[in-house]
């Protein structure tokens, strides 16, 4: 891309542009593309969610505007734009306005570190995984700003709930991701994706497996447990049902969005859907191989000789990533269709008493995995290098499986026995209903 811009500016137009101008143009171009992707995804996601949830509830969903209602989000957008923008008289006007930006911008940044295809990461650096979560927590400030500035009890309550939820679920999310960092030895998202080539076992663990792009981290016990914990946390961070306590419309109107109308409300809406998209994409990327899939690595290998093949590989990678992302978004909608909202104490209990210890144990087993696969005489484990890679992989798999299963069972036991100090519900033989002992 830089070569192309360089050619256009310096060779074709003969402008003698310095290097930083080319770099700037390149980054601006990528940023523009990303900013175009964002609203488009949001429009598509709202339509997708409404249609899917309608089908799950035996309804049809919006199907009037355009063919099967595909233009419905555009109609909604027009409605948003033309609505009156009302700011409460007692509101803190500056903060009220700024909050929308503070909420939206970080979610856009989140997309900038995602690897969309082989070699297609807009900004690639060593700590991009940590950056992804760090920047996502910035929008919590925007929520507090929005909730506080409206001078409304409902918005303040919603903001407090949202922030308490985001903070407490960031811990299990980041801790479950740390297990993957231990396994792959890198904190760069693109490196984690690249490490997931292979078939069931990935190429770094077992170099001889065929590379079908299916060596997903999900297929390891550590990765599976991390996926479960992470996806639950992602639901809570994206404020999806059953964790949509901050904007529980049957309790506190619309939470922190209560005092917003028109396009400002639309911005909050946009931020939420983009955040959900980013969370789905990062789930697909970290656990389900991102752009990895059958054929991508072969195509990009052929791309060394012919530029066309590497373009094809990129396109195929983007398709794989989007398919996985939309599958996860479908799962989010599916969960929304199936489960009722949690109570706030249940939410906190689940986060702190169950997910957090589980992820800590998972990090421990990830360390065992890394030791079994990568360590040798250098670390004082000379006996491990005597085994072949298959044997080491099997040892790692079995030992982490046992540890994780034990931890999960133990935690379920502890949590259910902790409940027994509260009024416990026991099945009644006669009515099949519940009674208190």
């Amino acid at each position, binding site marked *: 891309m830089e070569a192309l811009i360089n050619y256009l500016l310096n060779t074709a137009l003969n402008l003698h542009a310095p290097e930083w101008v080319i770099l700037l143009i390149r980054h601006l171009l990528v940023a523009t593309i990303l900013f175009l992707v964002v609203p488009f995804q949001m429009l598509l996601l709202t339509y997708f969610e409404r249609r899917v949830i309608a089908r799950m509830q035996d309804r049809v969903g919006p199907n009037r505007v355009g063919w099967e209602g595909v233009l419905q989000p555009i109609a909604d957008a027009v409605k948003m734009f033309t609505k009156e923008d009302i700011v409460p008289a007692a509101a803190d006007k500056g903060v009220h306005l700024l909050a929308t930006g503070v909420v939206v911008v970080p979610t856009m940044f989140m997309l900038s570190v995602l690897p969309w295809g082989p070699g297609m990461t807009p900004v690639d650096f060593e700590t991009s995984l940590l950056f992804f979560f760090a920047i996502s927590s910035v929008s919590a400030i925007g929520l507090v700003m929005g909730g506080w500035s409206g001078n409304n009890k409902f918005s303040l309550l919603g903001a407090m709930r949202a922030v308490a939820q985001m903070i407490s679920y960031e811990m299990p999310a980041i801790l479950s991701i740390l297990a993957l960092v231990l396994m792959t030895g890198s904190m760069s998202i693109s490196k984690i994706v690249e490490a997931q080539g292979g078939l069931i076992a990935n190429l770094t663990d077992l170099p001889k497996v065929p590379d079908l792009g299916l060596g997903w981290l999900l297929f390891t016990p550590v990765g599976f447990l991390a996926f479960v914990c992470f996806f639950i946390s992602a639901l809570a961070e994206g404020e999806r049902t059953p964790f949509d306590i901050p904007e529980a419309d049957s309790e506190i109107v619309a939470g922190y969005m209560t005092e917003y109308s028109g396009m400002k409300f639309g911005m909050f809406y946009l931020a939420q859907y983009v955040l959900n998209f980013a969370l789905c994409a990062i789930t697909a990327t970290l656990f389900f191989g991102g752009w990895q899939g059958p054929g991508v690595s072969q195509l990009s290998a052929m791309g060394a000789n012919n530029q066309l093949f590497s373009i094809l590989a990129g396109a195929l990678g983007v398709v794989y990533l989007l398919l996985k992302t939309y599958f996860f978004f479908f799962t989010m909608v599916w969960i929304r269709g199936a*489960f009722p909202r949690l109570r706030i104490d249940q939410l906190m209990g689940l986060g702190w008493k169950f997910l957090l210890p589980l992820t800590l144990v998972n990090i421990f087993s990830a360390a065992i995995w890394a030791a079994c696969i990568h360590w040798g005489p250098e670390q004082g484990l000379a006996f491990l290098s005597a085994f072949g890679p298959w044997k080491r992989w099997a040892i790692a798999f079995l030992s982490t499986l046992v540890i994780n299963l034990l931890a999960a069972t133990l935690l379920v036991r502890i949590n259910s026995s902790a409940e027994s100090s509260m009024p416990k519900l026991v*099945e009644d033989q006669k009515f099949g209903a519940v009674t208190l002992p």
Partner: protein
Amino acid sequence: MTVKIEIQRGSAVPLSRRHPKFLGQGMLKGMEVVLDHWFKSFGPKLENFSQTAGIFTTEYPEERLKLAEAYRNLPILLYDDETGQELCTSCLQCEKICPPQVIHITQTKDPSTGKLVLAAAEFIIEYDACMGCGLCAEVCPFDSIKMDHHYELSTADHASLTMHKADLLRPVSYYQSLAPTFWEQTKENAYKKLQNTVKRRSGLLGIAPSMVGKVQPPETKPAE
């Protein structure tokens, strides 16, 4: 083990949930149910309410639910298909019983004699204030007023909701198509009364305006 508990409105069936074999079994079951509904929504449409899956939405302008015979919206007046004679005799019973008082009737006078004729000269119902209670249809001794099934009345023109006699008149066959069994029950009585009424009408009086010219006016009754 399921036990039916009789409660006031129907019966509640509490389901026995056995202890789950593994963590999250109930949640997975719930998700399975939802997914099942999602798959079935692409199948045939739900036709009656005993079915539990499939889309039940009626996409209104294209599809309409069949209305029950007893459905009532706003009142209309009937006239006989063949002779064009209105069933209404302007007895003023409906005007008197109408709770919001939206019915206004002018009785007909024979232009030659100046006597009252059993027919309405003008019959106005203000549809905008009518509440559709159906008392007029209940009270009408000649089965002239019936309740219509037409409900798409929304308009930007408020004045057009004041319905005059010409707007209200419908042929008997129209009502028969709406409520065949009800008409079957009252048909005989209604026609008998109509014949009696027609005997006391003369010329074109009492003939629906849209039918004038299409039917022969009844023979003028012999002067007494």
